[in-house]
């Protein structure tokens, strides 16, 4: 049985959710902001709760669920990120008059799903968490009901997501059949006990590889790694920019956690096999992401491909198959999320001809109309490229370092060369905002003070990357000690 105190964070979210659903029905439209603030409060409170009970929560709740330091770190990170995302979303939705509390509520379901994913110690819970997240994302994408793009994106994501769920389940069923258990621990023990692990003739191994491939493909679909990335550009493009912001950030963290939990610990016995797969995935992702991004004109689409490339880098870190690589991957993931929140958050606050920003050319001459915004955007883009001293550099540095230290130098060289190719499309945006003729129709939805502070924080993080570095160190080593 479960001691429910341990899942108190989830309970906080759930009860807030239920309360607000009901409350919101009775609030008149001018008081709807109350629910928004309640949501924000619950997120922050939940984060605070986890933070304040950090060591207390460091236990395995049951075979199903754990609340280790590792997962709690990510939970706090997700909660805070979501709070920021909600801020941008609220500003955006209000500005364009499509504000509905349900948007936030449905997203909260997704949050719950992610928290479950992060904490799951059992494939059932993992599945439920993933589904909770996916279902909420399907709805959120389709939320802009009057937009054809949104519904098309939602349909695409839905169908493909369902297929990937099917793959996941198929893989899980195989695992279940082969190991007789759904619990991470037992599967781990079972796999580790198999003898002659790298011997392909072992029938069990082939079965496990089948399962591994199905699960890995499903997760890389959720992650957005090529060649299972096809939904990313379309969905990012089709959704409202704040939804893109949501999609491209925290779900990646959750999926990353799952990946690292499954691959690095549960399937650690199959390390030799899955590293090859992640290498293929990452190389393809980096290639496809960086190359196709070059010819994009829509900024969301471009950033979608950039996401794919970044995912490739994360997988590259994972494919190192040792603690140093995982740390690098975690660092990269967190960096990627922070940067992407900044990027999409900033873009969501820009208005061109009374519409949200769509094309890269909409930004032209941003520097002359709003130098500060242009400066912030430039910092983000440079961070994406990996130009020091911004945080993106440290992320790439760690990945490449982990590759070099495990003698994967050719991969390291590949990664850096693709960084160069990738720099081209980011530079093009900088070019548009700094070097092109200005258009006067460009404005912002609100003052960018908060964004400014946030991005300055980003810069600070770049100057003091040890903060994230220690965090990754701490949580990854925790994962492998327990």
């Amino acid at each position: 049985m479960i001691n429910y105190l341990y899942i108190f964070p989830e309970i906080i979210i759930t009860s807030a959710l239920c309360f607000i659903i009901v409350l919101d029905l009775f609030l008149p439209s001018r008081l709807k902001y109350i629910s928004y603030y309640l949501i924000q409060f619950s997120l922050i409170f939940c984060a605070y709760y986890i933070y304040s009970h950090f060591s207390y929560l460091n236990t395995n709740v049951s075979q199903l669920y754990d609340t280790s330091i590792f997962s709690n770190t990510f939970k706090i990170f997700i909660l805070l990120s979501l709070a920021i995302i909600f801020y941008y979303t609220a500003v955006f939705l209000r500005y364009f008059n499509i504000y509905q509390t349900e948007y936030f509520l449905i997203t909260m379901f997704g949050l719950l799903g992610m928290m479950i994913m992060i904490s799951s110690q059992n494939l059932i819970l993992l599945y439920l968490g993933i589904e909770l997240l996916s279902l909420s994302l399907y709805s959120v994408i389709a939320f802009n009901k009057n937009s054809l793009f949104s519904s098309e994106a939602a349909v695409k994501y839905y169908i493909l997501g369902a297929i990937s769920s099917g793959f996941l389940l198929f893989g899980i069923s195989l695992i279940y059949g082969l190991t007789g258990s759904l619990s991470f621990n037992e599967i781990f023990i079972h796999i580790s006990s198999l003898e002659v692990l790298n011997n392909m003739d072992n029938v069990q191994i082939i079965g496990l590889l089948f399962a591994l491939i199905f699960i890995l493909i499903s997760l890389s679909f959720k992650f957005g790694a090529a060649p299972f990335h096809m939904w990313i550009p379309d969905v990012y493009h089709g959704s409202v920019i704040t939804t893109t912001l949501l999609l491209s950030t925290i779900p990646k963290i959750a999926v990353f956690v799952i990946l690292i939990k499954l691959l690095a610990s549960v399937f650690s016995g199959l390390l030799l096999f899955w590293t090859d797969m992640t290498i293929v995935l990452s190389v393809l992702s980096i290639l496809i992401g960086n190359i196709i991004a070059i010819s994009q004109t829509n900024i969301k689409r471009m950033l979608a491909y950039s996401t794919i490339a970044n995912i490739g880098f994360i997988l590259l870190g994972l494919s190192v198959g040792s603690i140093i690589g995982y740390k690098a991957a975690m660092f990269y993931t967190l960096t990627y999320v922070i940067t992407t929140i900044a990027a999409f958050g900033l873009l969501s606050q820009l208005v061109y001809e009374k519409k949200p920003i769509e094309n890269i050319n909409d930004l032209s001459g941003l520097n002359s109309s709003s130098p500060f915004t242009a400066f912030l955007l430039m910092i983000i883009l440079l961070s994406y490229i990996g130009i020091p001293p911004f945080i993106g550099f440290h992320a790439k540095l760690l990945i490449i370092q982990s590759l070099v230290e495990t003698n994967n130098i050719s991969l390291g060289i590949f990664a850096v060369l693709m960084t160069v190719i990738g720099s081209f499309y980011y530079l093009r945006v900088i070019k548009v905002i700094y070097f092109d003729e200005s258009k006067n129709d460009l404005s912002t939805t609100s003052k960018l003070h908060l964004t400014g502070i946030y991005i300055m924080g980003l810069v600070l993080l770049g100057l003091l990357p040890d903060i994230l570095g220690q965090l990754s160190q701490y949580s990854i080593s925790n994962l492998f000690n327990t």
Partner: protein
Amino acid sequence: MYWQSIIIIFSPLVGAVTLLLKDKCTNIASSIIANLSIGISMLLSLWLFISYISGHNFSESHTLYTWYATSGYTFEIGILADSLTIIMSFIVTFISFFVHMYSITYMSGDKSYKRFFIYTNFFTFSMLFIVFSNNFLQLFIGWELVGLSSYLLIGFWYNKPSAVSANLKAFVVNRVGDIGLLLGVILIFITSNSLSYNDFFDKLPLLRNDTVNLLGLNIDLLPFIALLLFIGAAAKSAQIPLHFWLPDSMEGPTPISALIHAATMVTAGIFMVARLSPLYDLSGYVLDIILVIGVSTALFMGMVALVQNDIKRIIAYSTISQLGYMTAALGASYYSFAIFHLLTHAFFKALLFLCAGSIILKCHHEQDITKMGGLKKIMPITFIAFLIAGISLMGVPSMSGFFSKDLIIDIFKYSDNSIAYYSLVLGVFITTLYTSKIFFKVFFGENQLNIKKRSDLEHNHTLIIPLVVLAIPSAFIGWALFDSVLFNNFFEQSITDNTKLVKFYDLYIYHSVSFFLHSFASLSFAMVTIGLLLSYFLYYKNMNFLEKIGSKFPLLRNLLLNEYGFTHMSNIFIPRHVKKLANLVWVKSDVNIIDNFFVNGTAKLVSFISSKVRVIQTGFLYHYAFTMIIGLLLFLIIFIKF
């Protein structure tokens, strides 16, 4: 001698810097500063010279300044004062001073009066820097600095396109020589670990059998160095095939032609070889090369002068030709004779140029001698000066040119090198012809330029005095120095040919008087006489004999008019092909291949791939699903070995 030398060297520099920094400076003030600074040098040089001759022998080497020092090696600036230095500094400062004086009037109309004196002062400094140099680095630096001064002075009238073309050409050609010089200097440094003359000379016996590896061939070190250095000398002293800059350099003001392009700078090459006589003594076949170059320069460049009509160009070719004589003497390793000819030549050639300047000034800057004439009455002093200089150049016995030139011819006469001998003698004939051509064309006949006689003096004092003063050494310095200096062990401590010289003197010359008397029986005197007579008819009586010869041999005539094709080569062929090559390299290789193909090509390729690859994102749901399924299949097939 230390302080005197320093003052001699740096006084002109001080003058130049003073002028440079002095913002508003009247013409008079600038000329005074310039002349004063040179005057100090000249007087000191003269004093040194006289004291040397009067038995105060010295040969001193001092280090003035360490230019650069590193881990055991030093690169220094120093002074070496010995007989060669003294005589050279005497020539340089003496001519320089009078040219300066001459320029006061000559340049008076020019708005860049001060600049002129800055340049000339700087030139004098640079030249003295070479002359007093005690090491190779200083030699090279001075070498370049005189090249720079020459460049600046040729292009003094920088709005004149021909002038700036000429100075560019002069600089670049000199730079070609400088490559040789620089490489030679560095090779010396590498092999002897020092740049000092003395250290190098001391090490020479050790280096005799050294070789240097050039493209796998082992070449004897010393001749190679000598050759490299001679390339520098040839460029500076306008020897074939690097001579063609000198006639063009006549675009500069005439005093400059006198100073730099006749008397001093162009003789730097001769001076250098003489200075390095220990090296050249050991350089074997290089001496033969030098001899061949010298003789052919002397003969062929003189022939070119025959067909020229520009007064300065004629004298310029004459200068090249005379430098050829000196080089020939060097090639025979009679360095002292070369220096002696250098000395006398400096005076009469400078004088010749100054006269030419005087004439040109009178003729309103007309330089074509066929348009002049009848200036004898208008410019008597110039006439006399020119006459002295001219006959000195021809080598009429008793003139200074005679002593030096006939000595050189005699070398070959007595060494049975008949080709060289007859060539040089023929050179005398040609010299006589072109000199008298100027003489007759300019001073006799009808004036076509409408020049009025204004006063009893043809020009200002400052212009005339130099002519007069220079005429004296042009006439007498040969006599004066022949026995007492040249054959009186003057160069004993500086040039290695002293014993040879003594032998030569004892065997063939005995004394200047006997030399003088013997010369009337010599072939060269005959040539001078025939030449004079011939030119009297040709140029004074205006018999169209020469025209007839010319039309009989159009090939020869054209050859001479085209200066054996060097004009074409230097003005058209080389620039055009360099430009062509440059454009080829730039457009074809740099822009097209490297930049467009490799650099932009890669970028375009990536963009192209990108635009093609993006098509796989078709937008169709079933394609996406298909991709996933195929991906699954591939993963299964690749990673599972059934």
